[in-house]
């Protein structure tokens, strides 16, 4: 028994030796510092720095006091960390007659963004569903008009819209601005939803019809549950788009309803008094925080949804 075991190990060692002599075998070893890696990682690092450096400067500056800023080392970390500028930006900075900081603009923006996003997505998803699945008479014409709408510059339509809103009696109100945002979100969102729904298997829709489901039942029970990614994409597009909007905010509302972006501009661009860079930086970061949060929280779903909505058209 012992003998045989010994023999067999000896044999297997011999065999291994023979195999080693054959040359390469198994996974190819990978060098960490290959030329390819240096190029790939080098580019990525440079690009990241390009984007992250300004952000770093902003954060660092917003945490310094004014005397320290005047010294001029913009890349230096703060010697004395202070949250004074943030508090001031949020609650005390003056725009025009009001001195209650960005907080007023923040709540205005929330009151503009939330209904605009919900209404525009609700309407556009039904539009897209009808265009993709029901092929009603004139659907193609309707779709073409919507797409053309996406290419017309906003500025062209400002004056006519002012008149329309005035006639409707909602000019200068939040309602008016919500209507404008909803309408301008329609072309791109409808396109997004139509393409997504067109990419879902048509037989599913047919099966639901054989099962007796109507327009709304199919939409609510079959299509909606399958469309989470595209809803997330639409939500991100709309939240960031509407939150970052400046033009419509300044044109279609009165000062007490100005969104955060307009207020930020008024703080940063005020010509009177000392330029408080730290407050300006803090105010800017505060304004950008909402879209940033949205991106970070839903980034993965965003990429998935964009891919899903874009592939078929």
């Amino acid at each position, binding site marked *: 028994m012992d003998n045989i075991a010994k023999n067999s190990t000896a044999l297997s060692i011999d065999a291994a030796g023979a195999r080693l002599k054959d040359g390469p075998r198994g996974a190819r070893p990978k060098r960490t510092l290959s030329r390819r890696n240096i190029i790939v990682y080098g580019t990525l690092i440079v690009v990241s720095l390009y984007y992250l450096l300004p952000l770093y400067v902003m954060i660092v500056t917003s945490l310094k006091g004014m005397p320290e800023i005047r010294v001029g080392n913009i890349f230096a970390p703060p010697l004395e960390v202070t949250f004074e500028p943030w508090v001031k930006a949020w609650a005390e900075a003056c725009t025009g007659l009001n001195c209650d900081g960005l907080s007023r603009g923040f709540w205005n923006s929330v009151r503009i963004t939330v209904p605009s996003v919900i209404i525009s997505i609700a309407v556009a998803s039904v539009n897209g569903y009808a265009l993709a699945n029901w092929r009603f008479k004139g659907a193609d014409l309707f779709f073409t008009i919507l797409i053309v709408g996406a290419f017309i510059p906003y500025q062209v339509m400002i004056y006519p819209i002012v008149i329309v809103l005035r006639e409707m009696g909602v000019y200068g109100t939040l309602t008016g601005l919500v209507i404008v945002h909803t309408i301008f979100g329609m072309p791109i969102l409808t396109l997004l939803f139509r393409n997504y729904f067109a990419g879902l*298997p048509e*037989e*599913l829709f*047919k*099966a*639901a*019809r*054989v*099962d*007796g*489901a109507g327009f709304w*039942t199919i939409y609510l*029970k*079959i299509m909606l*549950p*399958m469309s989470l990614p595209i809803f997330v994409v639409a939500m991100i597009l709309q939240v960031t788009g509407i939150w970052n909007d400046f033009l419509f905010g300044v044109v279609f509302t009165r000062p007490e309803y100005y969104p955060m972006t307009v207020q930020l501009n008024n703080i940063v661009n005020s010509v009177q008094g000392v330029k408080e860079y730290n407050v300006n930086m803090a105010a800017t970061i505060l304004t950008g925080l909402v879209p940033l949060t949205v991106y970070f929280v839903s980034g993965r779903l965003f990429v998935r949804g964009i891919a899903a909505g874009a592939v078929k058209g």
Partner: protein
Amino acid sequence: MTSVSVRDLSLSFGAVTVLDKLNLDIDHGEFLVLLGSSGCGKSTLLNCVAGLLDVTDGQIFIHDRNVTWEEPKDRGIGMVFQSYALYPQMSVEKNLSFGLKVAKVPQPEIDKRVSRAAEILQIQPLLKRKPSELSGGQRQRVAIGRALVRDVDVFLFDEPLSNLDAKLRSELRVEIKRLHQSLKNTMIYVTHDQIEALTLADRIAVMKSGVIQQLADPMTIYNAPENLFVAGFIGSPSMNFFRGEVETREGRSFVRVGAVAFDVTAYPARGRLHPGQKVVLGLRPEHVKVDEAGTGEVHEATVDIEEPMGADNLLWLKLAGQSMSVRIAGQRRYPPGSTVRLSFDMGVASIFDAATENRL
């Protein structure tokens, strides 16, 4: 009694006419297969019967009720799709009961029908699962179940087995046949697979460019194809065709192809074969006898290629200057280059007019 009746049905998408004045009557309890290559209009016809496509002209009757303008749900049909089309976010049970819930069937009745369907299709253990947790065969079974719970008399199948692998396909094929035998519903089944058509159908409608070429039981379709298209479409490997001319000598009829003359006196022609008539002689690979002592005349041919397939052995031969295939038993082997003696049974041959391509 007619179950489904299609009368003068036309359908066009803009300038493209897919179906033109098509007529079809399907008996109660009949299994009808619509067979054709892709784009022949078979699925379009099925969708018209289902009510998923609006017809341009004509009428559709189901159980002697004109349903031309009815919604799919009101036609008394159940449908099974190629891609299963199960609702991905619902469990199997919810998938089965969705249509009944929409129709506001009382819950006890829903439970009864779902459990009956699950029992027939043996999917009880799967009821709580999502479609993504099922295999292809199980998914298709659930899809059939969804048609089953609707308690309808007409089942429509749109290439239900095309997404399955070969083994599952033959298993499910038998199950569908068994289902039809026990339920005795009317079934309309669309496929491009001739094996499915021949094995399942009571009658097959072979379609080409929106026109039914032949409507008959599988054996008639196989043995006596009505025209050249049907003859070439049915059978694998396909029928051997020889283009030639009719000759008559001493009271016997021949089809002359180059140097070879086939004696077709035994062929049951519908009319008379006129001397000089240009015809196409069709011989199925499995109807050729190789090296067998028989009655009729004998032709010699050389083996070109041999394709052993286990149960069968397929020989590619050269005869009358063209290639032909012959199917023989798997145990008999002929190396390439060997000479074989062929004899033909003209009783099961087909002769078509070369110009009209119709059976003579």
